[in-house]
């Protein structure tokens, strides 16, 4: 990163009109907030910005992160409950108001284009600058597998400070000195064990007590809750159909809007012609950014009307003839001629007298998110006030987009974040916000729920970028056996983080690859060179579960396998050699190999493949076992080992690993968005197939204890290794090397 780039980030963001409270977190203590911050209701007492208690004995924790299945509500409530010595069954969660203390700093730090092991003044400087910018900006968002990492200290601190305050309140209530009191299981007790007060009985004794500077945090050896498979806090609502997703929002007088987006990227609706009068139930037709909306009393009726009752005149986008074949040819050309945006080398390049090279070109297509809950947003415009209900991953950005669209200030906008029916990165985007606000302004005072059909959702996504990579290995052939001397990788693709920051903050494109697409493989190569070519293009790209790792890992881990085979080495043994200096990686690798019974015989036509990736602060290795019969492929079993540092909830870690495996398997076996005439060819699950229960492998997840003091991410790291593990297993089973995703035998 050049200095000018760093300045561009800061200048650009600040220039984008985001400067708010001038806040940043000099110390974690600054993120505690004050006692009145967290929507205190009658019968409740706020203990600090993150915790309040109720007379009903509830402990309510502020969870400013979106629950999209990853278990964030449960994990963050556990952090507070642990330090507060609360009972798990008394914990509740609530969405707090928008305030800088609730914002996510880690997510921005992770987005910088460095490999995590890189250090030095430049990297540290960029981290410092971003940390500061994140504070100034104050972005509340959920992604990058950062929530627990970001909250690990501040939310435990909030619990510890709350506990100390309750001790003082109990001391006041019972006239017993604080140092004669302790807390356990949601009660303040005398040190001899007699109960003094349940938390709920202290609501009226907190009074004007102010939080005092942090007492120490617990030693992990003393944890009672962290590390235990506690039940999810959202499970009861979710099995009863009582969890409110965005699509379930019902407000008085609510209308529904169906949308048709312009068929080609960047296109627009410019005119429409309704055949006769508007039918019963349709109230208004509105041109919205990127498309057209029919607003009425039934979404189903409005959606049908767009198919049958209206002629729409479209303006084409900038690339109305775009097709996938031509785009691949262009990328292939850029491998040779593209200008290199980022070049990185490690080690010393040697030129052996007798050398031989192995070249392999890999491809990964565009992918849609296809979250189960189609994209939606509900908005009401009432005078100057805008109210939004939305399943979203970035309420700060929702608020800004709504304010911009309505021409009001962000303080006039209220955002309610509902449960998310899957997120996977799609719900960082604000395209639906703009459409919903335009609809709401057309029917003042009435809430409008904008919902996309599945077809719109798949055809108008912000896609995982398609990418192409050429790996090359060079071998010294002068000795008795070939010896690896160098590996080089040249990767071509759009940068989703660049595209996102341009969209969300109005920054000029930096032409830099996204950080995690160019993370260095962990292996100790004699020489390694990375060259990244960044393309721009009309296809909108965005964050997609595990972002750049989702394709880079397929490229990297497939190629390592190819090199191992070229050297006539076992793929496990070869990785082990190259990881000799990395004990945490090695332990994960050895665990997965042992648990998968690596090296034991399999029936003919079956094979095992291994892959490893460190991402989002965690290390995951997987062994896939596949059976190939003719042209059909079945993934029978996946063994997964994960070192995610300190484990908050092992049950959720396991489920997130399985979740990543299935999501990654859908992409590896089926996922492909193709373009023709400037438009996406796929539309719905029948032609954008995903893994179902019958195709789901048997999975075993093993959590590796590294003794780390801090947690790593778990929402994404389970995904990247599965595609290469399966490709490597196919090679082991058939001798056939598949270098294109999705993996197709014919």
């Amino acid at each position, binding site marked *: 990163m050049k200095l000018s780039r760093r300045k561009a980030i800061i200048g650009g963001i600040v220039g984008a009109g985001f400067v708010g409270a001038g806040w940043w977190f000099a110390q974690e203590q600054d993120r505690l907030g004050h006692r009145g911050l967290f929507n205190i209701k009658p019968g409740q007492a706020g203990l600090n910005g993150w915790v309040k208690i109720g007379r009903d004995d509830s402990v309510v924790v502020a969870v400013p992160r979106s629950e999209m299945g990853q278990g964030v509500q449960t994990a963050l409530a556990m952090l507070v409950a642990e330090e507060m010595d609360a009972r798990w069954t008394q914990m509740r969660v609530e969405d707090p108001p928008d305030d800088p203390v609730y914002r996510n700093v880690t997510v921005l730090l992770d987005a910088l284009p460095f490999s995590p092991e890189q250090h030095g003044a430049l990297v540290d400087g960029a981290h410092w600058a971003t940390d500061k910018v994140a504070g100034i900006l104050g972005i509340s968002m959920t992604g990058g597998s950062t929530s627990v990492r970001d909250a690990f200290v501040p939310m435990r601190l909030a619990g510890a400070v709350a506990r100390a305050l309750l001790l003082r309140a109990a001391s006041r209530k019972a006239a017993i000195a604080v140092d004669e009191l302790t807390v356990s299981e949601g009660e303040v007790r005398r040190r001899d064990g007699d109960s003094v007060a349940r938390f709920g009985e202290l609501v009226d004794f907190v009074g004007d007590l102010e939080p005092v500077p942090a007492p120490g945090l617990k030693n992990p050896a003393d944890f009672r809750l962290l590390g235990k498979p506690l039940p999810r806090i959202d499970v009861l609502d979710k099995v009863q159909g009582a969890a409110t997703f965005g699509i379930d929002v019902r407000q008085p007088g609510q209308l529904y809007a169906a949308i048709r987006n312009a068929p080609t990227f960047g296109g627009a609706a410019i005119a429409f012609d309704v055949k006769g009068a508007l039918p019963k139930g349709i109230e208004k037709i509105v041109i919205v950014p990127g498309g057209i909306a029919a607003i009425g009393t039934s979404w189903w009726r409005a959606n049908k009307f767009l198919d049958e009752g209206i002629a729409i005149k479209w303006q084409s986008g900038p690339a109305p003839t775009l097709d996938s074949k031509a785009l691949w040819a262009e990328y292939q050309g850029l491998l040779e001629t593209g200008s290199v945006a980022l070049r990185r080398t490690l080690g010393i390049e040697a030129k052996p007298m007798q050398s031989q090279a192995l070249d392999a070109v890999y491809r990964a297509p565009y992918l849609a998110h296809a979250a189960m809950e189609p994209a939606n947003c509900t908005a009401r415009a009432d005078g100057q006030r805008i109210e939004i209900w939305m399943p979203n991953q970035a309420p700060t950005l929702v608020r800004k987009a709504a304010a911009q669209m309505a021409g009001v200030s962000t303080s006039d906008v209220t955002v309610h974040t509902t449960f998310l029916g899957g997120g996977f990165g799609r719900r960082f985007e604000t395209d639906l916000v703009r459409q919903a606000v335009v609809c709401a302004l057309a029917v003042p005072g009435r809430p409008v729920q904008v919902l996309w059909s599945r077809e719109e959702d798949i055809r108008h996504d912000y896609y995982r970028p398609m990418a192409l990579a050429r790996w090359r290995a060079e071998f010294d052939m002068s000795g008795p056996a070939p010896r690896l001397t160098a590996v080089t990788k040249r990767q071509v693709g759009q940068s989703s983080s660049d595209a996102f920051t341009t969209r969300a903050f109005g920054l000029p494109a930096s032409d830099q690859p996204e950080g995690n697409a160019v993370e260095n493989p962990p292996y100790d190569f004699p020489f390694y060179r990375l060259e990244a070519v960044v393309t721009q293009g009309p296809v909108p790209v965005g964050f997609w579960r595990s972002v750049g790792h989702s394709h880079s890992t397929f490229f990297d881990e497939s190629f390592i396998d190819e090199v191992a085979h070229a050297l006539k080495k076992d793929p496990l043994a070869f990785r082990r050699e190259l990881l000799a200096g990395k004990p945490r990686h090695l332990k994960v690798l050895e665990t997965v190999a042992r648990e998968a019974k690596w090296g034991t015989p399999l029936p003919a036509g079956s094979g095992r493949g291994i892959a490893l990736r460190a991402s989002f602060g965690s290390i995951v290795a997987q062994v896939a076992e596949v059976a190939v019969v003719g042209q059909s492929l079945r993934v029978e079993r996946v063994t997964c080992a994960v070192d995610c540092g300190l484990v908050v909830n092992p049950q959720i870690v396991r489920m997130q690993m399985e979740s990543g495996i299935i999501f990654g398997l859908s992409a590896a076996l089926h996922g492909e968005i193709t373009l023709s005439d400037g438009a996406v060819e796929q539309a719905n*699950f029948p032609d954008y197939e995903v893994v179902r229960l019958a195709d789901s492998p048997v*999975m075993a997840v093993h959590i590796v204890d590294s003794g780390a003091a801090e947690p790593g991410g778990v929402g994404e790291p389970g995904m990247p290794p599965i595609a290469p593990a399966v490709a490597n297993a196919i090679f082991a089973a058939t001798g056939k090397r598949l270098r294109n995703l999705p993996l197709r035998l014919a």
Partner: protein
Amino acid sequence: MIALVVNGTRHDVDVPADKPLLWVLREDLNIVGPKFGCGVAACGACTVHVDGQAVRSCSLPVGEAAGKAVTTIEGLGNGRLHAVQRAWIEEQVPQCGYCQPGFIMATAALLRDKPRPTDADIDEALTNICRCGTYSAVRRAVHRAAAIIGGAS
């Protein structure tokens, strides 16, 4: 007017006969447990029971449900937790949870037909989509629900 009996309550709805049952439930009766996922009966998020059979309500015209007993996730347990819901809690199945009402309704119908389903029965009956990948937990929960029901009878 079309007469529907949903979760034991009779409703007369003034809607076109071709309006899918899903949208009548969600828009006209404010029963939002059944979810919209694909609109083409491909994902199962909208699964409800019609006269005890699992049906993908996004593709069933409401006219065809007239006079029949419709059960949604809200009415499955009759005010208590159904054995399938209990099994779902014990196995901690849901992640995002959006598709789960559909899985639970499909499972309840399966267990009525096959009280002791094999893995192959489950593969065949539960063709619903879950993007969070809860499938292994779903499978365990189906077997657990079968055991709960079996033990109770």
